[in-house]
């Protein structure tokens, strides 16, 4: 056994991050995927997991995952790590993945690295910290390394793997069932890509005055995710989960369009590693222009609709 990879799934489909994690894990040796599923839910997901480059796949079935959430997921993974002694356990860096990793690290007495963007064959990881102003390489000194990796850190090659599938059952003890989940409302997808996974992000700030329509229209033409500055989410103009910045999501897309965002250091910390940055702002002195590859000094309510109109007409 060389590396374990937790494969996320939601609404019956496998998350894109699974194949990315497997691509990293392959550098460490054999890769075992782990699916944590409700009883009977596994078969449909196993075929989807073949898009990840796996040598074997462990399907852990338990009704506790839905009812008791992260505690159950962490306890099941802890058991697998203790039984199989992998070099590393790789998990996607999101709100749930980081907390699962945290608990497994404590329970297995393993070192933990979060938000890595790379890991090499010697388990040396790369992280981008302080909003991308520093690149840090670190390594874990314990036998097992628990590492969470940011989605979209690597392009996973197209594969169709045929892993050996093993099914096991898992149950929490009664004392471990401290938390009960009574209701779940999945996030509305709205047909747009997830913020941290999107190749293009269009964000709106104070300059929208609460009207995100031109931002959303441009995002939809580009197949982009919609982000927002803290000023916009604090004002209640856009959901908190779309906030980009120091206290929100960190994004690193191919293209980031900041619309009506002044670019305070707290916002830049969440987007300045984007490959290309475009800014639209009325204020020619706005700090966002310091990091923008292309800036338009103007009113977003004029510039964005004109850009959208032009894009809609372009030959496809």
């Amino acid at each position, binding site marked *: 056994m060389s590396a374990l990879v937790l494969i996320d799934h939601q609404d019956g489909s496998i998350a894109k991050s699974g194949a990315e994690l497997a691509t990293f894990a392959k550098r460490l040796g054999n890769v075992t995927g782990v699916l944590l599923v409700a009883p009977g839910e596994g078969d449909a997901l196993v075929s989807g997991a073949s898009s990840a480059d796996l040598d074997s796949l462990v399907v852990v079935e338990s009704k506790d995952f839905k009812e008791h959430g*992260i505690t159950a997921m*962490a306890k099941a993974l802890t058991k697998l790590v203790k039984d199989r002694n992998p070099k590393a356990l790789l998990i996607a860096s*999101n*709100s*749930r993945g*980081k907390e*699962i990793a*945290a*608990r497994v*690290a*404590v*329970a297995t007495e*393993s*070192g933990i690295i*979060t938000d890595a963007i790379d890991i090499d064959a010697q388990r040396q990881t790369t992280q*981008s910290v*302080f909003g*991308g*102003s*520093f*690149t*840090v*390489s*670190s*390594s874990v*000194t314990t036998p097992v390394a628990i590492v969470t990796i940011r989605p979209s850190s690597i392009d996973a090659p197209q594969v169709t793997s045929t892993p050996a599938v093993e099914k096991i059952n898992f149950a929490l003890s009664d*004392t471990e069932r401290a*938390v*009960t*989940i*009574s*209701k*779940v409302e*999945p*996030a509305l997808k709205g047909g747009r890509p997830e913020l*941290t996974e999107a190749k293009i992000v269009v964000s709106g700030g104070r300059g929208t005055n609460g009207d995100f329509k031109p931002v959303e229209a441009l995002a939809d033409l580009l197949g982009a995710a919609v982000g927002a500055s803290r000023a916009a*989410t604090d004002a209640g103009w856009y959901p908190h*989960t779309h906030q980009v910045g*120091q*206290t929100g999501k960190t994004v690193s897309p191919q*293209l980031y369009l900041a619309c009506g965002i002044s670019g305070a*250091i*707290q916002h830049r910390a969440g987007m300045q*590693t984007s490959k290309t940055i*475009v800014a639209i702002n009325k204020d*020619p002195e706005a700090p966002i*222009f310091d990091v923008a*590859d*292309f*800036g*338009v*000094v*103007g*009113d977003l309510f*004029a*510039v*964005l*609709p004109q850009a959208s109109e032009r*894009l809609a007409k*372009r030959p496809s």
Partner: protein
Amino acid sequence: MKIAVCVKQVPDSWAEKKMVDGRLDRESVDAVLNDLDEYAIEEVLRLVEPLNEAAGSDAHTVTLLSMGPDRASEAIRKGLSMGAHDAILVSDPALAGSDALATSKVLAKVIADGGFDLVFCGTESTDARMSVIPAMLAERLGWAHLTFAGAVRVDLAGKKIEIDRMTEFGVETMSASLPAVVSVIEKINEPRYPSFKGIMAAKKKTIETKSLASIGIESSAVGSSASWSKVEGAIARPPRDKGIKVEDSGNGGEKLVDFLMEKRLV
């Protein structure tokens, strides 16, 4: 009931951060209370203040809990001026360079020994941004794990708690019996500014400083030598090249699309 709120002193998030020898340079920037912790303090105060007022006594107490250098007491003082009753600061030269695993070990020990029923945290610190301490505390203490709360409903008498966990995956309603570890997101409330009266009252409140020996943790179990991850190197990112800036004179949108097409981004 005794409620603890974990707080951290961090570099001001509006300041440019630097690294020296693989560690954050904490000396060159202003240090403040982690602003995400203020939401946790505020939520707990909103919970206990009406109850204490009705009882006419401080039946429920709010204790700030922190690990850090002695000067972390400045950040703690802000939380006390918001209305927390007292504070515990674990400070010891041997703690320098502790990773999240060691930090959670120290905090969990103080919580377990302190007779608390409920611990509140912010979702992350604005410096390390790992977002792992609340989960590590739940694992170490064996308490209910209720994190990323956008709404908290507590029945202190019945020792029950329910939260709405709000994340990129959606909203989950989850409940537990106390004891519990709760982290709150910044959407949950609007933290108060300390009043003049609060600031004056905070000067008289106690910050109890504890050493590792006094909480019963060996110095070999924490600090950089006990850390299970080590930084091999840190490189500052080169500044971005100066970009193009155009005035919108009626064709700004067109020029924007020209740029995107030229760069083959669309």
